[in-house]
Structures are given as structure tokens and as C-alpha cells.
């Protein structure tokens, strides 16, 4: 007789901690966006200390750069706590691996941040730093999802409609979003013109519309998929307008001698909502892969009943 693995127990403390980690990571993305938008990336020339101290005078650009380092240190410590907590109470091996990967990612992110300061913001290090930030945020959101009671109650599976396949398509959305984030980061760090980021935006928006509308039209009986796709659509809608606003404000203040508050605000919001778009597309892909199982090749006629 086969013995099935016991269902992992729900640990509300761990789940709340994971949500806090994801929230702090979003704040970290905002702090990083402020550093770049305020041209403050090199205001603290040394690393890992700041002006040779743990706490330099928080004036001018130092406020943004050192503030970013402080939030980053907090997120790093929170990630360590998450991993320890996972190892102690959660028996899912794959989730522990996710925790280890998250810790390695946040360490690599810190090193990239230090290197970009020491090497005077080479575009490829700064762009890698920006992209890894987005991936790490998605990882923390996924960890919050995996530790939720909602996740632990098990999937509500729905068959894949052969006419409207969704499993592979759902993976394309985060890939397209990550490409867009990389193009945006490369433009912000002056590696390429913003035309590439602008040109890719209708493509990535189209991809998100394609995935989300397919789910809403053909898989809407699954509440999780319906909500996740609606959330992705809503975030993308905001992101498109923020992108336009950020671009317009850059044109309006092209001759400014210092970063203008309107431009900074729209750009940082665009970066933060970009992170949310990435995380929402990753979460949707995870839910699709979980709730829409791959059809068994020799079991086409008989379909599992829909559980909503």
C-alpha cells in the first residue's frame, strides 16, 4: 500500500514573516529606484562601509545611498531568519531549497551593489543588480504564497483545454516581463536608449493580455486563477500609465540640472510597480502550473473533475 506524504502544517508566524520579507523587499526596490533616480549611486564611494563608518551623516545623496544599504541589510537579515525558520518548521525540501536560493540571491545582490559602487556604475553590473532585485522580490512573493494556508489546502485543479493551452503560455509572461525590466534597467543605466524599453512595452502588455484574457475566458471557474489574472491585469494597467508618465516627465525635465521630484516620483513608482508586475506574473505562472496539470498522454478521454 502506498503511503502518501503528510500534508505540511500551516505556520502562521512563518507566513506572516514571509509577507513581511516580501514587503521589505518591495521597499528595498523603491529605495534602489530612489538611488538611481536621484543620481545618488556614487554619493558613498566606499563599500561595505559608508565614509568609513557604519552610519555616515545622512545628507544629500548619502541619505538615499546609505538608506538603501540599510534597508538591504535588513532584508538580508530577514532572509536569513526566513531560511532558519523554514528549516526548523517546514518539512518541504523544495521550499527549503527556495529559501537557500533566496539567501544566495540576496548575498549576490549585495555583492553586485558593492561592485557597482567600487567600479563606478558599469552598466552591466548595475543592470544585473536591478534585474536580480526584481527576481529576488518575485522569490519572496512566491515564498509568501508557498507558506500560506491557502496554498497548503492543496490545488483546485482544472483540466487544460486543448484548444486554449495555458501551461506553457503562462511561463512566457514572466520571461517577457523580465526582458522588459532588463531593457528598462539598461536604459536607466545608459547602456541603451529608452526606445528599446518603449518598443517592447506593447509586446509585453500584449503577452500579459493574452495570458490573462485566456484565463478569464476559458479557466475562470478556477477562483485562484481568475483572481491572479485580474490582479496581473490591474497592475499592468497601472504600469503602462506610470511608464508613460515617467517618460513624459523625463522629456519635460530633460534640461534640469538636478533630478526633479515629479520625474523621480513617477520613475520610482514605475520601477516598483514593475516589480509587482513581475511578481504577479510569476505567481500566476506558479498557480497555472499547479492548478492546471499536464494532460497524461494516454489519458485523453477521461478528465479529472473540476474542483473550484
Amino acid at each position: 500500500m502506498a503511503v502518501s506524504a503528510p500534508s505540511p502544517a500551516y505556520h502562521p508566524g512563518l507566513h506572516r514573516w514571509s509577507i513581511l520579507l516580501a514587503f521589505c523587499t518591495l521597499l528595498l526596490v523603491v529605495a534602489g529606484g530612489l538611488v538611481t533616480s536621484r543620481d545618488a549611486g556614487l554619493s558613498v564611494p566606499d563599500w561595505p562601509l559608508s565614509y568609513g563608518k557604519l552610519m555616515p551623516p545622512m545628507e544629500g545623496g548619502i541619505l538615499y545611498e546609505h538608506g538603501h544599504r540599510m534597508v538591504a541589510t535588513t532584508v538580508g537579515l530577514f532572509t536569513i531568519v526566513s531560511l532558519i525558520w523554514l528549516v526548523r518548521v517546514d518539512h518541504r525540501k523544495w521550499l527549503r531549497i527556495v529559501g537557500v536560493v533566496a539567501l544566495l540571491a540576496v548575498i549576490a545582490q549585495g555583492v553586485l551593489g558593492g561592485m557597482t559602487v567600487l567600479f563606478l556604475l558599469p552598466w552591466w553590473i548595475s543592470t544585473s543588480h536591478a534585474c536580480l532585485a526584481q527576481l529576488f522580490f518575485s522569490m519572496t512573493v512566491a515564498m509568501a504564497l508557498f507558506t500560506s494556508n491557502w496554498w497548503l489546502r492543496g490545488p483546485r485543479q482544472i483540466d487544460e483545454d486543448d484548444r486554449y493551452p495555458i501551461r506553457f503560455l503562462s511561463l512566457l509572461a514572466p520571461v517577457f516581463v523580465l526582458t522588459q525590466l532588463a531593457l528598462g534597467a539598461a536604459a536607466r543605466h545608459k547602456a541603451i536608449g529608452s526606445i528599446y524599453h518603449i518598443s517592447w512595452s506593447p509586446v509585453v502588455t500584449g503577452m500579459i493580455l493574452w495570458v490573462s484574457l485566456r484565463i478569464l475566458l476559458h479557466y475562470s471557474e478556477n477562483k485562484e486563477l481568475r483572481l491572479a489574472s485580474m490582479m496581473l491585469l490591474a497592475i499592468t494597467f497601472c504600469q503602462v500609465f506610470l511608464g508613460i508618465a515617467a517618460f513624459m516627465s523625463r522629456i519635460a525635465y530633460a534640461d534640469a540640472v538636478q533630478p526633479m521630484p515629479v520625474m523621480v516620483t513617477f520613475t520610482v513608482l514605475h520601477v516598483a510597480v514593475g516589480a509587482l508586475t513581475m511578481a504577479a506574473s510569476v505567481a500566476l505562472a506558479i498557480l497555472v502550473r499547479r492548478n492546471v496539470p499536464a494532460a497524461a498522454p494516454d489519458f485523453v478521454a477521461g478528465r479529472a473533475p473540476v474542483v473550484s
Partner: protein
Amino acid sequence: MAALLLLVACGSKQPAPDTSASLPPAQVDPATAGTITGKVLFDGKAPPMPEIDMSSNPNCERQHKKPQKAEVVEVNSNKTLRNVFVWIKDGLPKARWTPPAQPATLDQRGCVYEPHVLGIMEGQQLEILNDDPVNHNVHAESQINPAWNESQAPRAEHKFKTFNSEEVLFPVTCSVHPWMRSYIGVSPHPFFAVTGDDGSFTLKGVPPGTYTVEAVHEKFGRKQGKLTLAPSGTATLDFTYGS
């Protein structure tokens, strides 16, 4: 991580080689040396310069009785343009010119750089002062010479730097105060000037010859002119920029 560090090591810029060392020392006969002079004119309406918002650092703001304006385009009352770097770009014999013993000075005072545009010779020392009660970082954004970024505490010891390769112009910036920006032109010879409040320039002690003279402005870019300088003569060349 090791691969990343290797990439960084490979990608980092090597110091520009000092190519002037193998050249013969420059010699100018004072009996035949002449002068190149001229003005940098501005045709059109002077664009209004925005006021700098120093509110992010009250210690900067307090040092000024009235708001400072950006120095990007400064048109003088005689319709000439200030802060234009003018130098002999081409025509001088290949030679090694001796840099002056006294350093060129870049001061940080009131959270602005003084001067806004600075000429310096290859190998000449640049002395950097911080007369402010605040921290600055000084970032030389040079492309040919090795770039650097260093902090300077309030009224700290002066910094001394040299640039060994010709490079006209590159910005020097402060990320603590993002409005702070100056420009440095590194010339291999002493025949350069920066226009002031009358928009004129004078290059003295130039050997006779035919030269390409170049004017470089941070916003309006480069303009060149050719002239021939007779022995002990004076040649005039004006440049005109427009909005």
C-alpha cells in the same frame, strides 16, 4: 561569483599610457612666438537658467544669500558665452610640454564647483579643496584617463590628482549634491583658455604655424576654426554659438 569577479577584472579600464614621454621636449623661440586671441559669441536669446534647489542639504542652502542659478549656459552682457574651453587642437609639432609646477585648483564652496570649467595640462596636478561644512564625493567621469570617485570630508586635506592623457572635456560630479558639475579639459600643451565674463580668450607664446583651434562648450558642443600665426604675430579667431 569568481566568474563575475574575473569579468570585472577583464572589464576594468587600464590606465591610459603616457605617450608623451618618448617625445622630444618642446621648444618655443620667444622671439617668434605670437598670440592667438578671439571671442566666443552667442547669437540668439540667452536661455534662462533654472535655480538650483539646495533644500536637500540646508548646510548648502545657508551659504548663499540668494538662490544659485545653473551655470550650463552663461551669456555675458556683451553677447559672448562664458565657460567655453578653447585650445589648439591640431598643428603644434609633436613634443613633450612641461606642465606648470603649480597645481590647477578645483574648489567646492557653497556646494558648487569653482571654477565651472577648468583647463589643465597633462601631468599637471589638480588640487581639490572642500571649503564646505558638508561631505562631498568627487567623481571624475573621464573616459580616456582613469575615472575615479572619492569622498572628501568637510574642510578635509586637499586632494591631488593628475591626468596623463589628452581629454577635452569630461565632467566632474558630486552625487551627494547632484546639481554640482564642473568640466575639465586636459591638454597636452599649455595653449588653452576658458572664456570668462567678457567671452574672450588669449593663447600667448604660441610658435608660428597653421593651427586648428577648437572651442568646446558643455551644452553646445565643439566648433573648430583654422588660422595661420605669423612669427611674432597675432591671429584672431571668433566662434559663434547659437541657441
